[in-house]
């Protein structure tokens, strides 16, 4: 089947021969690894963004690299799209299946192949859960630093695809800063090794290109991660503010004072009100905003840094300050922050999580604007932020069963993202573009930049078979988006089944 990646328009895969595909797959992977009955496919119809669902033609649960190579070679020859998937916890629809394609699950490849305590590295298969790496390394006083909220379930392969972050990345970096090497299979079935155990690799930095490429360039089969020595101790300050703008200014003041906290998170009043009944974290419910500022290191180091942060917070007009007295209280303070998403689900039938990043100093401005949008769209929004790095997670509360609310929610989200770009930021800090934010890409990038992304994609996958229709919008789509942009509230993606 002759196919070619097309920057202008999405390819039409209607001519895929399902019967031939299934018979070739059945001949090359073990019987239990191939799913093709609708009831078996159903669990794979969406990822963490459940609003968009689609059934693939087949699911392959690969058990080793040889099976990944075999599946890719078959699909490459037959011109069939392939979507790779880890735990399916992604929040942008990046692992939503292709209706004419194969969903390639890496979740069964979950062996930790090696932990080298001296080199402080771990070699793992892509289906290993993020937290499982830290658990396995704990015996050596080491851990894997990036900690996305979904770390109990999400896989390292998915983390590589999304360049996942977490609450500690201001100090410890994102996935791109903590992965040393990726072994991957291209759509043509060729194995590539990017990066290495040495501090650098010759040639272009293809490791960086691979990380955050949302499954469009190659399928990850092995990852070497850097492990970090576990700090002796950690303490967190919970500071209250009677004004969100002042809380935002306090964030800038801490960093301006030369402090890089291990974590620096902010929640607004609506967010603390939502989580407090749920987790009893002891949050100040009278405050307009609270900040959580964490310090980690040796006991003496933490004492020194907590005292410095306290002085800055006092000077920034904090109305209340509490320092965790022990590990149990530290975890309690964090429990509220980590429960923000489930708490939103508890107080509202549906919620929509936004992921823009803005320069820190614009936080107050953004929060005021979101307040205005709540009134404009008639929807509530609770705000949790990775304040230290300017990454916002406004959670828009809505009820999909109420006519018009879904469309208003999407328009609300789009307006936040457009403002993020206008304030000098980005439409996605850590969740990825996936399927969800394709239109946002048209806002953030000029067509020549999008065309460069398409050419880069074609350099790895000339036929355009890996995760087509994700991450980078077609130029035609952006042209259309520009034309319809003025008509607010129109339904996006009319071809996709909606919930």
């Amino acid at each position, binding site marked *: 089947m002759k196919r070619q990646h097309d920057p202008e328009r999405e390819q039409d895969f209607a001519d895929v021969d399902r019967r031939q595909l299934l018979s070739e797959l059945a001949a090359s992977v073990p019987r239990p690894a191939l799913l093709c009955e609708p009831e078996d496919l159903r669990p794979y119809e969406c990822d963490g963004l459940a609003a968009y669902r689609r059934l693939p033609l087949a699911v392959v649960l690969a058990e080793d690299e040889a099976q990944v190579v075999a599946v890719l070679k078959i699909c490459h020859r037959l011109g069939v799209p392939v979507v790779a998937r880890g735990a399916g916890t992604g929040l942008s629809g990046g692992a939503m299946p292709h209706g004419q394609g194969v969903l390639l699950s890496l979740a069964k490849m979950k062996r930790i192949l090696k932990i080298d305590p*001296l*080199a402080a590295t771990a070699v793992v298969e892509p289906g290993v859960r993020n937290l499982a790496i830290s658990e396995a390394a704990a015996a050596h*006083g080491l851990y894997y630093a990036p900690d996305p909220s979904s770390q109990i379930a999400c896989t390292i392969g998915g983390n590589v695809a999304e360049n996942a*972050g977490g609450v500690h*990345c*201001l100090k410890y*970096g994102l996935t*791109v800063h903590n992965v040393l090497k990726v072994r991957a299979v291209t759509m043509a079935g*060729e*194995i*590539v090794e990017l990066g290495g155990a*040495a*501090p*650098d*690799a*010759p*040639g*272009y*930095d293809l490791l*960086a*290109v691979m990380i*955050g*490429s949302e499954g469009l*360039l190659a399928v990850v089969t092995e990852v070497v991660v850097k492990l970090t*020595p576990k700090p*002796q101790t950690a303490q967190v300050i919970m500071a209250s503010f009677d004004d969100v703008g002042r809380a935002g200014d306090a964030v800038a003041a801490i*960093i*301006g004072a*030369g*402090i*890089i906290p291990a974590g620096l998170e902010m929640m607004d009043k609506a967010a603390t009100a939502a989580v407090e009944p749920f987790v009893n974290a002891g949050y100040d419910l009278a405050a307009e905003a609270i900040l959580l500022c964490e310090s980690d*290191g*040796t006991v*003496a180091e933490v004492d*020194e840094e907590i005292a410095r942060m306290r002085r800055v917070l006092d000077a920034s007009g904090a109305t209340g300050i509490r320092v965790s007295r022990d590990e149990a209280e530290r975890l309690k303070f964090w429990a509220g922050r980590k429960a923000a998403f489930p708490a939103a689900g508890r107080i509202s039938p549906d919620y929509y999580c936004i992921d823009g*990043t803005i*320069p820190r100093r614009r936080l107050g401005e953004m929060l005021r604007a979101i307040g205005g949008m709540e009134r404009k769209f008639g929807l509530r929004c609770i705000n949790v932020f990775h304040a230290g*790095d*300017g*990454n916002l997670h406004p959670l828009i509360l809505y009820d999909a069963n109420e006519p018009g609310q879904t469309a208003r929610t999407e328009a609300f989200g789009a307006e936040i993202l457009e403002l993020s770009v206008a304030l*000098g930021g*980005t*439409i*996605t*800090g*850590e969740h990825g*573009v996936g399927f969800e*934010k394709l239109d*946002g*890409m048209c806002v*953030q*990038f000029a067509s*020549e*930049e999008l065309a*460069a*992304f398409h050419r*880069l994609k074609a*350099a*790895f996958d000339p036929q355009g078979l890996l995760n087509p229709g994700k991450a*980078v919008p077609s130029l035609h789509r952006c042209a259309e988006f520009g034309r319809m942009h003025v008509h607010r509230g129109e339904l996006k993606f009319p071809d996709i089944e909606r919930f």
Partner: protein
Amino acid sequence: MNSQEFSARIRAASREQPLAIRGGGSKDFYGGQPSGEVLDARGYQGIVAYEPSELVITARAGTPLVEIEAALAAQGQFLPFEPPAFGAAATIGGVVAAGLSGPRRMAVGALRDFVLGIKLIDGEARELKFGGQVMKNVAGYDISRLITGSLGTLGLILEVSLKVLPRPVCERTLRFALPAGEALARVSAWAAKPLSLSASCWQDGVLSVRLSGALAAVNGAEQTLGGEPVPESDAATFWHDLREQRLPFFAGEMPLWRLSVPPTTRALVLPEPQLIEWYGGQRWLRTQTLATELREAAVIAGGHATLFRGGDKGTGTFTPLQAVMMELHRRLKAVFDPRGVFNPGRLYPDI
């Protein structure tokens, strides 16, 4: 020179009449021999934005590195990857294009870890912007990091945004008299513990390590490590001279090789003298030994070898890539510079 004038020069160039992108010329020695008509980026300079509380600086490519470092120092901040300048003329564009990092690399990350965004003109004279000024940004492929260290073969860098950090409150340097094998073992063990290590250098039986961080942390680590403290100003000079390759080890005409290997690699049985940095990850050799022999040793260890300065570049500067990777490099070159106008041969002969 403004960006329109750059574009005009790029449009007029061709595979037969290529351009040699150049900043201060301080790294002309690095990589393949520059060829083509010089495209001087120095005229495009100036700090565009610097907000200390954002930990980001944005500057035009021709801005001298010294100017950037002075602006940061005035606010108690710095470029944590300590890029070698190799001369006062070094520009920030050249620093990013060369992709080199200094003594602090293993503790804080490499130059590429601090690149947030890049504006460039590609080989078809298209002005493109990737990444931005924020720490977390996953919109689009990470082209800023692809450009970093690509030695000008993909485009002319116009502007870069870099993450910066506050200077550590306290630094201390300790010395130990140790043979190479023992020094490597100790540094590896220290690096796997939270001991505020920020640099290491072994040469001629002496191991120097630097500690950086809060006062309490540095004091605690010093007690654990022991060793002979080095006076502060001597220490600062030493690490600076190491970064700029002004230590006596780097003097003279003997070819200088750089081996990048997994840091825990044992002492390599290769000709002396050797200087070992980056907790064992970066090893410098002064030798006439054949390229093939050094490259083989580096590859067996899991790394690669670069003819950094001097010697015969006829056998290539960098370790050759495997066929699949080389083909990807050719295709990526064509993505940004299909007519082959930029820095031919600087990275690999046909790139």
